[in-house]
């Protein structure tokens, strides 16, 4: 049935995934009668971006300069003749062609004094000590649950929770391509989601509980679909499309949690892993996963997910874009490396002591979808719209 029966009575969508086609369906049907008290809502992620809350004055040392000015800082660091730097700047400002700058920037790393590709070897390029964000607010979670960092942590602008750990935002929040809000997404993440949405299988969410209209325990799953997300002619996400779960366990995530006043949170804080397009990063991995998902709306849901993320994964997404992507999308990639390295706050390397993960939070939106097991045929599903 389209509407009322779209809230499927079932036990565990994962069970069906593991059991496969015929057996899975039969087993699912069996469970439907024995565990008839559960509802399962399905969604497809329709937007994914770094959760940013850029405000006037949150970069007390100023937003990072334009890319060309950052480049001139490198020239200065190289000890280039100030007059030459000024000549290049003037040519740039007046729109005259000057072929000297780009070749130098493509090899602005230095190893034993020799020019080196900075994108594949970011540590070789100078750390220009660009500032991090020092505003009061950031979306996210108090990941470490430490009382003693509450003063230095952020405050979440929606929940007003203090001690929020979101050092990725501190690291990137003053870079031009990473400034934005939930409504006006940062340039980089608008580009990145465009790449991800059109090139990779969709991400699916299911929320299962006894009665999702009331407070109580829930099970939340995140999976990758076999199908790509579908959109309407105006590029808005298309609701009520049908997706099957990719049985590949590398993108399966399942958490216990609760729903309270329409907001789902998870309590077991395990790991989150989802394969994604390597152009952005080959995998989205978050340790100590936290989630806050408002499922009270019928048509579209939104939320924040966070955890500790290997920052080098992110860098390789930035660096892979090379000088073209640097100039067109993200700004100076190498300084992003230095910033994330500087502000990384978890998982210290046992030898160097360098933190290898950074606290992060991402904003997601999702629309109702039919979610079925890998062998589901049209007409059958495990989770759907409210």
């Amino acid at each position, binding site marked *: *049935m*389209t*509407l*009322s*029966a*779209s809230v499927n009575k079932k036990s565990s969508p994962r069970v069906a995934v593991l059991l496969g086609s015929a057996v899975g369906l039969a087993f699912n049907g069996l469970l439907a009668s024995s565990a008839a008290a559960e509802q399962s809502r399905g969604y497809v992620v329709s937007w994914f971006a770094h959760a940013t809350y850029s405000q006037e004055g949150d970069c007390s040392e100023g937003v990072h300069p334009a890319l060309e000015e950052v480049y001139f800082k490198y020239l200065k660091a190289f000890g280039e003749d100030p007059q030459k730097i000024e000549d290049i700047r003037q040519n740039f400002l007046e729109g005259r062609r000057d072929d000297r700058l780009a070749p130098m920037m493509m090899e602005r790393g230095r190893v034993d004094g020799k020019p080196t590709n900075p994108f594949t070897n970011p540590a070789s390029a100078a750390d220009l000590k660009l500032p991090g964000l020092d505003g009061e607010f950031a979306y996210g979670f108090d990941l470490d649950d430490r009382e003693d960092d509450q003063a230095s942590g952020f405050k979440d602008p929606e929940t007003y929770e203090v001690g929020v750990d979101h050092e990725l935002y501190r690291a990137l929040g003053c870079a031009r391509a990473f400034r934005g809000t939930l409504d006006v997404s940062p340039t980089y993440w608008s580009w990145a989601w465009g790449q991800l949405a059109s090139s990779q*299988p969709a991400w699916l969410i299911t929320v299962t509980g006894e009665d999702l209209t009331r407070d109580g325990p829930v099970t939340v799953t995140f999976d990758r679909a076999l*199908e*790509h997300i*579908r959109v*309407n*002619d*105006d590029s*808005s996400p*298309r*609701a*009520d*499309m*049908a*997706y*099957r779960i990719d049985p590949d366990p590398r993108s399966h995530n399942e958490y216990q949690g609760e729903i309270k006043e329409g907001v789902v949170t998870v309590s077991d804080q395990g790991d989150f892993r989802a394969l994604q397009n390597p152009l952005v990063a080959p995998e989205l991995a978050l340790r100590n996963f936290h989630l806050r998902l408002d499922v009270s709306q019928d048509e579209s849901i939104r939320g924040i997910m966070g955890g500790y993320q290997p920052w080098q994964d992110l860098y390789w997404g930035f660096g892979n874009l090379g000088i073209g992507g640097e100039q067109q999308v993200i700004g100076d990639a190498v300084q992003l490396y230095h910033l994330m390295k500087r502000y990384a706050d978890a998982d210290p390397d046992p030898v160097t002591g360098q933190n290898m993960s950074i606290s992060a939070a991402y904003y997601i939106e999702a629309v109702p979808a*039919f979610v*079925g097991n890998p062998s*589901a*045929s*049209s*007409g*059958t*599903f495990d989770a*759907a*719209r409210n």
Partner: protein
Amino acid sequence: MDQSLFMKNNQRKFGHAWHVALIVCAASVSLSGQSTEALGEEQVAQVQTVTHRLTPSQYRNIITDVFGADIDLGGRFEPDLREDGLLAVGSSVVSVTATGMEQYDAMSRAIADTVVDKAHRELLIPCAPKSVTEADDSCAESFFTEAGFLLYRRPLTDAQLEAYVGAARTGAELTADFYEGLSLSLAGMLSSPAFLFREQRAEPDPDSAGNYRLDSYSKAAQLSFFLWNAGPDAALLEAAANGDLHTEEGLTRQVDRMLTSPRLEAGLRAFFNDNFRFDAFEDLAKDSILFPKFSPVVAEQAREQTIRTVLDVVLTRRADYREVFTTKRTFLTPDLGSIYRVPVYKNGPNGSPDQWQSYEFSETDPYQGILTQISFTALHSPAGRSSPTIRGKALREIMMCQEVPAPPGDVDFTLFEGGGDLRNATARKRLAVHSSEPMCAGCHKITDPIGLALENFDGSGEYRTTDNGADIDPGGELNGSKFSDVGEFAQIVYQDTVTTSCLVDRLSSYALGRSPIPSDKEWVNNLDESFEQSGFRVTDLMRQIAVSDALYRLPRADLNTASASVK
């Protein structure tokens, strides 16, 4: 004007192509002289023949049949005209405008150029010229004899053949290219009335003194366009040529052959597309803010969904026609599934075109039958909302063959759109004002109650339970039978004999290419009865129409001075 002088003047102006084109035009036999050429003047006055302009799909089908599916038409068609509910009837009252003729000319040249190009000539031209730089009458004659037979749906007369061969010769001499000459002459053939119009030729009926019937080739065309929406194939033309088609046994043999052919599907598609007025899809658009799931692709898929649903009932399963109003079986794509809010998974690789899948709505789904499909609910709604009035009118006119008058010119819409309490009211509440206005009540009482049955489907066909925040009440009454929801409504439509009589009326009109006239009354009534006896099987009805003398008998003008529905 003296034609030769005209040609001489224009040859200087426009060059060889015009020269050949004018020769071809001169060669084209005038239409008016053909349809009754075998009859005397007195007889002509007594016979009513009908001439139809080929519909776009018929034009395409003939070109595909004769020259192959890869021929690009390279032009567009003039809009058709609907008369008595059918374009097939309207095609008998349309002519060709100057702009339309330009388009036909552009298409004929594009088709002819493709037929003779190097990629096609070996396959499509049955001979090779002695020299490609010179005329070859023998080869041209061979080509035009074959192609002309299929394009004109009858053998070319000697004069026609001579003219086309002559035009090809002139063209080849002027251009020093045999194929160019052939192409110019073929373009002329494709622009001629004998191709563009389906003409009926009369002959005295030997079995009914003083009456007339279609000649055998006209009969073949009548049959072929009815069952296949295309020109006659070689076997049918042969049956026309050897007189078989004028015998009961021969006609039955051809009808049964055609009814078991896969091409019957094309004929049924053409009829139901016409009968359901699906040409309106070309102008259908929805407010993308209100109905973001709707798109031109969805519109096209919605049309196809309904055609597939109907074909499943009437052709694949040969089931009771009335099931089209109640069936849960249909065909969907993932995009349509999202509007119906049922799971339809993509069944091909990501990025590949969506494939059609058979689908059966569950018993608790509100969707059943074609009236609940997007092709009805969305097609008969304005861009931004539903409309019980428009839907009710469509149901009356399309499915019941009843005419609903247009609103008066001075209708006061503020009564309906209103303000205050009505601004956020359901459609039922807003439409209730019609009952208090005598100017409106007469018509709205026959449209609104049945349109309200479909109010659970919004302007894009998506299910809803509320309108403007208030619960929707889909209850109502149809021809004295009350219903409380769309399921009961569908059952009432299923049981109402008006819908089956309407189909008989439309299908017989479609076959005849005109509305039934008083002398057809007995025939149509018989069709109605036997349709019921057959269990409302559409292919049985088609067979009965196709083997009827009435389909090929030409009405006497003095007995049928005006067309009038027999219903």
